[in-house]
């Protein structure tokens, strides 16, 4: 009786969190979970984190406008300036650097992963300098450095540890000053 009750609870729990069964991928013998399911930095770094950080800086990340009122929000006038700077620099960017930058204020919804990559590694830091408070720029710079290392063709053991360290620093910064900063307002 006890036994049945236990299984009932477990099944109910699975149902609640949306687990419907074993993944068919786990039937492949050479597959180990989670080591065989590496993280795809194209989607994670370029298309998710870069976009969310941009939303934070634009003040439209949270649905609640009170939560969006943060010290790291850059006002519209400055975003327009950044956009214009990106447009004007187009002609002087060497083709080796990839696509010429597009105005991030107008086109960030249509940005391709490659454009996000160059936004992170090339354009974000110089454009945000003096517009973002220094400690937020510092926090973002950890991420920029980590992404630059991740883009390397060959990684040394030292690089790998550096990536771990930098991403942890960025995460702590995000947790403390960007996301949970909301609790310090009240």
């Amino acid at each position, binding site marked *: 009786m006890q036994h049945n009750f236990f299984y009932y609870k477990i099944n109910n729990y699975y149902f609640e969190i949306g687990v419907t069964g074993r993944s068919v991928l786990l039937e492949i013998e050479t597959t180990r979970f989670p080591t065989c399911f*590496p993280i795809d930095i194209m989607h*994670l770094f370029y298309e998710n984190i870069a976009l969310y950080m941009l939303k934070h800086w634009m003040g439209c990340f949270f649905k609640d406008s009170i939560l969006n009122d943060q010290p790291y929000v850059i006002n519209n006038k400055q975003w327009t300036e950044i956009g214009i700077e990106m447009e004007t620099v187009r002609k002087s960017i060497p083709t080796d650097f990839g696509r010429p930058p597009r105005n991030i204020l107008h086109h960030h919804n249509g940005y391709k992963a490659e454009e996000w990559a160059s936004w992170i590694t090339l354009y974000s830091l110089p454009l945000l300098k003096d517009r973002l408070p220094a400690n937020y720029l510092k926090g973002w710079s950890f991420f920029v450095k980590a992404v630059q290392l991740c883009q390397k063709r060959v990684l040394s053991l030292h690089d*790998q540890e550096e990536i771990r360290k930098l991403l942890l620093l960025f995460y702590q910064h995000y947790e403390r000053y960007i996301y949970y900063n909301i609790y310090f307002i009240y």
Partner: protein
Amino acid sequence: MKVCFHYILHVADSIQDTGPCWSTWQFPMERTCGMLQPLAKSRLHPYKNLTNNVYLLELFNNLCYFRKFYDQIFPPISDKKYKEHLVYTNENYEEEFQWPSKPYTLTFQEVKKIKDHLCVIDDRASEMRLNVCIILFYVILFSILKLNID
């Protein structure tokens, strides 16, 4: 907090497990999807259509191993020959620079300015007989020189 911010803590581990990020990122897969998309033209049987098109494409890709047929279907394109004074190119570049060869009539003042300038840099140039009709090459030379003067 968004779950993707949690994922960044696992990036270093996944590098340790499966190698540098480029070896597992989705760029090649997205590219493949981009190539496959226009191949599915049929709306009634998109998958059948896609399979057939991919198969056909692969046949063409393998055709180069059958020289006899390949040369008939894709006749070799002969390399273009240029006169030496008409083109400038570098081994490392695909691009070619063509000299402009359109006849251009210089105005009297332009001829005078060229002469004046050449006089300054080279005494012998003053003896040069410049015809009123000179090819555009001189105009380019002139503009380069003018830049130098400015």
